[in-house]
């Protein structure tokens, strides 16, 4: 008994310590299994060999709206999935908070907005969000075909909710994917993500 009592807090500490640096550029991206808005299960490890984009999303957030009402996010999704990139939109809003949607609601939204991610991962209990320590919507991550995190940060360099800033912005996700797809090192690997806080349940 004594062993268990001392071992447990130690194990918990290790988990916490690991969680503190869970999603650091240059290190393996945390593996996950998540369910999409069509009920399909996705396991990150199954996408080895492909670039994977994670896009934290909240349809009510003004910063997310900036990139959806303008069509900017959909353009990115279309462009990069056409080039073989896997694009997961992730929703970590807890039930009762802004941006929480049921699967049918999300599918309706995708249709209305002409959004074309590979899938939308529903994360109402925040497990995936906490695993990647996602802070804002939108926040973007890129994982390379070897499973290493190569980008963590903002979608672009204009931290505003104003769509008129988009044409003058440097899109970090496109820049990173362009570089990575042509075998170059990503220049901007970590930037300050901007936007609304992710509406976690805790």
């Amino acid at each position, binding site marked *: 008994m004594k062993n268990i009592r001392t071992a447990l807090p130690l194990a918990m500490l290790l988990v916490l310590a690991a969680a*503190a*640096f*869970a*999603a*650091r*550029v*240059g290190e393996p991206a945390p593996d996950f299994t998540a369910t999409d808005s069509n009920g399909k299960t996705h396991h990150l490890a199954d996408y080895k060999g492909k670039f994977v984009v994670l896009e934290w999303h909240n349809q*009510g*957030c*003004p*910063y997310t709206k900036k990139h959806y009402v303008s069509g900017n996010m959909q353009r990115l999704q279309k462009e990069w999935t056409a080039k073989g990139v896997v694009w997961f939109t992730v929703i970590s809003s807890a039930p009762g*908070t*802004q941006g929480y949607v049921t699967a049918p609601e999300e599918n309706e939204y995708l249709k209305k907005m002409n959004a074309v991610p590979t899938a939308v991962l529903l994360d109402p209990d925040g497990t995936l*969000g*906490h695993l990647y*320590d*996602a*802070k*804002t919507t939108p926040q973007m991550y890129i994982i390379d075909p070897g499973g290493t995190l190569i980008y*963590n*940060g903002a979608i672009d360099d204009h*931290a*505003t*909710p*104003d769509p008129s800033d988009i044409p003058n912005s440097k899109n970090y996700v496109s820049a990173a994917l362009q570089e990575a797809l042509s075998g170059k090192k990503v220049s901007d*690997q*970590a*930037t*300050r993500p*901007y*936007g*609304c*806080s*992710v*509406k*976690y*349940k*805790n």
Partner: protein
Amino acid sequence: MRPPFFVCAFVLGALPGPGFAGSLRAQSVETTHAKVELLADVTAVDSGQTVRLGVHFVLEKGWHIYWENPGDSGQPPVLKWKVPEGFTAGGIQWPRPERMQTNARVVDYGYHDEVLLIVPMRAPQRIPTHPGEASFAVEAKWLICREVCLPERATLALSLPMGTRGKANPSVEQIFRETLRRLPHPLPAGWSARAISGKNEFVLAVRRGKSIANAVFFPLEPGQIDNAAPQKAEATADGARITLQKSDQLLKPIVVLNGVLALADGASYKIHARVANQ
């Protein structure tokens, strides 16, 4: 969207009597969750003088706006000035912020209730002999949040008689005085701030010759420390030692840790701590 009102308040320093105290305040603009107004700390402006203008935010209960480093989410207010020829607007003097924990993963820095963002305004060395009034306008944009966030904006204006040295503006004296007290001071002579970079943390040591209890560090640069990680502040015999978890976003070593150290007594200090490796 254009702002709903364009408010022009003419501040007449020469008018006497307590009955006019109200007219020294600019008219305010109400947005959905805030009331904002442009204030001046004096009643007139003379050549060569630097006066203080300030955008005063009174926020709806429970709502907040952000500090210059907003923390994990949010965005600081932006002020775009239109000033008379020869005048120069300085940067915003940010009062010490509050640490606002939204959830386990998100900590932001900002203000609840009310805040005055002061901007020094320098008049040119020479202004015409009969210049009339100096008209200032500011377009303010800010993000205001409770559980949700909304972008808001307002255009505010204020005119001051020019070419005469004004008096302190009595109707706003108190808010300016209180705000100036909340501005971070440069580190006093005899104090020092240094940081040691460990594997996963910075240890910031502030020395002032006597113990400091309950100090809180606010980072100026994003992506250096993990905002949501608890700060471990220990009082030492001659100051304080604060352990700050490094951010996941920090990929390169840093030379200086910039920020504000807020003390329990309300005073705050600008920190530019050189970082040494462990």
